[in-house]
């Protein structure tokens, strides 16, 4: 498998896009992965499911605006250089 750096960046961009487009109301709540459905109390350490839900919500919050910019750059580059 020949990995160029650009291929790696494209794969990372696609993965982050995937995590960001999971809609909170239409999709995650229906499968029980909404961000406010996982807080089981201030007891012991959170389990893996609540960690995952926290991760999805934080990725969505943090990466919303930068992803718009990076996606636009990627689209322009793809249009120009194929």
């Amino acid at each position, binding site marked *: 498998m020949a990995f160029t750096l650009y291929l790696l960046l494209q794969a990372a961009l696609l993965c982050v896009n995937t995590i960001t487009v999971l809609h909170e109301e239409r999709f995650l709540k229906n499968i029980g992965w909404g961000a406010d459905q996982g807080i089981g109390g201030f007891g*012991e*350490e959170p389990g*893996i499911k609540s*960690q995952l839900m926290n991760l999805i919500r934080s990725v969505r919050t943090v990466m919303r605006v930068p992803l718009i910019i990076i996606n636009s750059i990627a689209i322009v580059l793809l249009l120009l250089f194929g």
Partner: protein
Amino acid sequence: MAYHSGYGAHGSKHRARAAPDPPPLFDDTSGAYSSQPGAYPAPGADVAFSVNHLLGDPVANVAMAYGSSIASHGKDMVHKELHRFVSVNKLKYFFAVDTAYVAKKLGLLVFPYTHQNWEVQSSRDVPLPPRQDLNAPDLYIPTMAFITYVLLAGTALGIQKRFSPEVLGLCASTALAWVVMEVLALLLGVYLATVHSDLSTFHLLAYSGYKYVGMILSVLTGLLFGSDGYYVALAWTSSSLMYFIVRSLRTAALAPDNVGGPAPRQRLQLYLTLGAAAFQPLIIYWLTFHLVR
């Protein structure tokens, strides 16, 4: 000026004695500066005289000074930006090695079964640098092993007459991409399993870089002893690397605060360690089998 006339006189004396020389390739214009005192701008005729052997032009001297000031300014800017992303002091900890440590660590990577004490020692809550503690991870061995692996891959391909300069870059970037992916997967695993330890990114980078030593040994044995030697070395280095990773991660990073945790989390951490260890032979095989045919 007397220097030049004296030199010219000696030269003419030599020329009078020896056979007629071929005409000089360059015109000797060093005497011309003295006859044109007012032809140069403010930087000064003495500045022009002192650099005329190198540049012959005071404007170029000014440009050189300006360029060097720009370069130092750029260097300061790069240092500032670098310090924002990478803490250089933490990085220096990983490169504080000496020859004895490197030799013992390499021996440990190949034969870890007799090592008794795997704890990372720390003095006053600061982990000891690798120079004083054999169990401390370092980044020197992984870096050197990575470079050696790329060179060895080029050699192996050259022996099989499949070498071209692009292959070296391809090999290096492929291996680097796999390292980045493995470190990211380990970071994700550490976050999901809520491991409370001082495992920083550089620790994970160090532990995932130790597999390059195994790769180098496998490829060398494969080159010397053929395909069978390659598989034997692969099996040996894979098992010793798996043992090394499991022992190091369990005692140094995962054990201290988590002994009394709930059972599912302990199991998760165990799976993480075993998964990290099981991934090593796969990636060693994947990155080296095309070099030994």
